[in-house]
């Protein structure tokens, strides 16, 4: 007779033996797999796998990539051998961008869906009567830039404009010191010391791969001076923290320290000395919050480890420096004897893609009646008020954009441009002669209009004559033909001079080969230090003395600094990049503000608090992160996504290095 106790013993024996069987482990494993394979999870269609060579055009670095395809769908992106530094998280997820939720599905007119002809008619109507029409191109040097320039010059009052290109800002200032005609570049291959002032050289600049490789071999010493402990600061051997907005004072102080070590041979030294003498080291020290010894020590390092090069340009989020700061940074290179020397700043060849343009900040305020802005991701932020300042009252704005963000949300007309990989896109390196093309690998979304198609429609609506061959493919072939005719440079290792026809070069470029011309032309550079004219001297001193801004408004005690990576201007971030960065906190996610714990303690705030950051332009809610690396009495605000950028006010020169802010718990 079976008793209750027998059943319990039988059950007990079974339970004891259960861990000795594969049942729990196998079922756990299988169930885990089962949960990853729910029937409602979409499964990509299988197909023929292939790989297409291309380049990433999300920023100007133009890294060589290979796009993994299944049938006609891009499913992944890998770096190619020509990108020795690898590729960034943005590039890794770039194949996801055509499906991004911020993608514009159709052209818009006053926020309502419209077709290309409708948008063109509205822009033509706004431009009628000889109005001033500006075409703003954030990525100059492309074949598309050539089309914008042609379009602007076909109009009576057309302006082809570009913003300050940060990678070339110091080079252009150095070019001015050399007489204004020289095209220059940095010689990363031989530099022994690089002092980056605010510039994120290793974190998104073209040429980063070469510097990273040389740094790993101990061939180059990197020093970073800036107001935030950026990725560049972390990767440098030494970080010199500067009080926010004091870069100009830092440059002048360092010039003084260099000159005190021994008079370098440079034209204009006497006049420049008189500027430096009016800005003693103690003053530079007080403004930058650095000890005078730091300037002296830095001057010794730079002079003792030549060739040394000083690089400015600003960064992706907090924008360019004032022209005067760039001029003084260029002057440091002259003092170091680095202009015209291998390993410093050298002459570079011109190339057919370059064209004269008007700098956006040189356009008179309130003079633009119609703006056509190409929002091809430039990598750096461009706040609305930098653009707004130049617009006439009631101006009409048309944005050519893939994403419904930034300028597209301000514009009356929006042209829905194809996403990356859906159409030809280009990478033109601003700081050297380089050009690469990414072919279309994905069928273009219905409703997307390419910039050249829009310009053609607009020209028809405005009765403009654009000439023959006004199309991106024709323009790119024409550019390839010009390069081939010059016989200069090479395309992914193959010399252009060895290519029989221009078609051979175009074929190579259209299949992912990057063209570049590294040859330094035989050109003697004779730089002259600034300050020859009294007004020039006063201008430089005025800027050095005015930073940090004295006009701190009552009740706004904190220096607000914009921080962000190349994605600050990229429009949309691929989900893969967002997941990797946001979850790892390798980069601060959007909507985050960071503050030194001592500053937070004084304000009664703690880590993770929801706070409102307020400037005179408005307020934004953010989540507070406490970070020892943030300077006291400063707050760093991540501007990815554009929201926090609204808090900054650009000056007349188009810079927005810092704003005064106050913070309170939300």
């Amino acid at each position, binding site marked *: 007779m079976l008793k209750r106790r027998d059943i319990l013993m039988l059950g007990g*024996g*079974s339970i004891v033996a259960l861990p000795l069987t594969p049942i729990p482990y196998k079922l756990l494993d*299988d*169930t885990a*797999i089962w949960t990853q394979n729910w029937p409602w999870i979409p499964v990509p269609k299988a197909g023929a796998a292939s790989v297409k060579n291309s380049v990433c055009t999300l920023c100007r670095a133009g890294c060589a990539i290979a796009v993994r395809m299944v049938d006609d769908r891009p499913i992944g992106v890998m770096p190619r051998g020509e990108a020795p530094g690898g590729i960034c998280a943005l590039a890794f997820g770039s194949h996801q961008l055509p499906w991004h939720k911020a993608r514009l599905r159709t052209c818009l007119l006053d926020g309502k869906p419209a077709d290309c002809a409708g948008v063109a008619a509205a822009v033509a109507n706004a431009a009628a009567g000889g109005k001033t029409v500006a075409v703003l191109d954030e990525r100059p040097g492309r074949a598309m830039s050539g089309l914008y320039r042609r379009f602007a010059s076909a109009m009576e009052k057309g302006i082809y404009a570009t913003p300050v290109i940060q990678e070339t800002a110091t080079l252009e200032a150095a070019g001015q010191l050399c007489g204004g005609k020289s095209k220059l570049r940095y010689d990363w291959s031989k530099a022994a010391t690089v002092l980056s002032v605010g510039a994120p050289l290793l974190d998104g600049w073209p040429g980063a791969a070469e510097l990273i490789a040389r740094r790993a071999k101990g061939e180059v010493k990197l020093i970073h001076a800036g107001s935030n402990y950026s990725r560049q600061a972390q990767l440098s051997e030494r970080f010199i923290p500067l009080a926010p907005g004091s870069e100009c004072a830092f440059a002048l102080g360092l010039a003084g320290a260099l000159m005190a070590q021994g008079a370098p041979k440079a034209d204009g030294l006497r006049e420049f000395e008189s500027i430096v003498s009016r800005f003693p080291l103690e003053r530079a020290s007080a403004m930058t919050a650095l000890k005078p010894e730091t300037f002296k020590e830095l001057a010794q390092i730079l002079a003792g480890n030549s060739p040394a090069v000083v690089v400015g340009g600003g960064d992706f989020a907090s924008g360019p420096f004032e022209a005067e700061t760039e001029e003084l940074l260029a002057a440091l290179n002259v003092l170091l004897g680095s202009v015209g020397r291998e390993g410093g700043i050298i002459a570079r060849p011109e190339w057919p893609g370059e064209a004269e343009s008007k700098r956006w900040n040189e356009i008179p305020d309130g003079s633009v009646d119609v703006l056509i802005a190409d929002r091809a991701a430039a990598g750096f932020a461009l706040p609305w008020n930098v653009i707004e300042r130049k617009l006439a009252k009631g101006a009409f704005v048309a944005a050519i954009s893939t994403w419904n963000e930034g300028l597209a949300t301000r514009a009356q007309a929006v042209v829905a441009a194809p996403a990356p990989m859906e159409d030809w896109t280009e990478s033109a390196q601003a700081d050297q002669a380089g050009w690469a093309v990414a072919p279309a690998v994905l069928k273009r979304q219905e409703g997307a209009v390419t910039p050249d198609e829009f310009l053609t429609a607009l020209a028809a609506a405005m009765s403009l004559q654009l000439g023959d061959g006004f199309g991106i493919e024709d323009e790119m072939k024409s550019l390839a033909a010009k390069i081939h005719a010059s016989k200069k440079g090479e395309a992914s290792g193959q010399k252009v001079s060895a290519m029989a026809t221009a078609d051979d070069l175009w074929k190579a470029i259209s299949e992912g080969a990057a063209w570049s011309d590294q040859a330094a032309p035989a050109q003697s550079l004779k730089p002259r230090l600034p300050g020859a004219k009294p007004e020039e001297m006063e201008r430089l001193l005025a800027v050095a003395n005015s930073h940090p801004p004295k006009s701190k408004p009552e009740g706004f005690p904190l220096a607000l600094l914009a921080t962000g990576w190349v994605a600050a201007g990229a429009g949309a971030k691929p989900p893969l990049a967002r997941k990797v960065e946001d979850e790892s906190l390798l980069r601060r996610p959007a909507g985050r503000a960071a503050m030194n714990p001592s500053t937070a303690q004084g304000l009664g705030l703690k880590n993770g608090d929801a706070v409102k950051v307020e400037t005179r332009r408005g307020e934004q809610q953010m989540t507070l992160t406490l970070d020892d690396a943030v300077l006291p009495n400063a707050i760093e605000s991540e501007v990815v996504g554009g929201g926090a950028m609204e808090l900054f006010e650009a000056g007349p020169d188009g810079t927005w290095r810092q704003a005064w802010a106050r913070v309170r718990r939300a």
Partner: protein
Amino acid sequence: MRSAIFFLTGVAMMLLGGWVGLPKVLYKQQAQPLDFSHKAHVVKAEMDCTGCHDFREDGSFAGVPKLDNCAGCHAEPVGTTANEKKLVEAHVTPEKEIGWLVYSKQPINTRFSHAIHVKKAELKCERCHGEHGKTETLRPYEYNVVSGYSRDIWGRSVSRLRRASHEGMKMDDCMDCHKEKGAVAGCLGCHR
């Protein structure tokens, strides 16, 4: 004594159920659409693996042979077997692909390059597929009713102890070999 007997019976039943019963319940069998003798092709016809499981011109692996591969030799029967007759009549003539059930089919979140492993790392086919290339008939395809995966992914041995080097295609198996060879692939090297 009586209690001990029931206790030990419980232990024995669970062990038996776990080690013998579980695989029978967990795996279901499915017959291949057509039988195939690897031995006949490799030994008699003196073909090698890549004769049918070929690499494309771009270096990528073509995978399980398509009907075209078979039709190249078997447009008409060249032997007298029932299987060949079925191949020609049911597939080659009506141009109907054979729906082979792939023993080593990898999960959707995985990618595997035969080209890298066979050409670059010079692994033999047998390293992962064992003596499959010498079999006279195709064994039934077995799949896990919970995960849906082929049994070959876990391996024949439910304990995964004392299994042959080619048994099992779980991540651990890949990792063991990678560790042994010092090959670094990273997460995205194998996972989509």
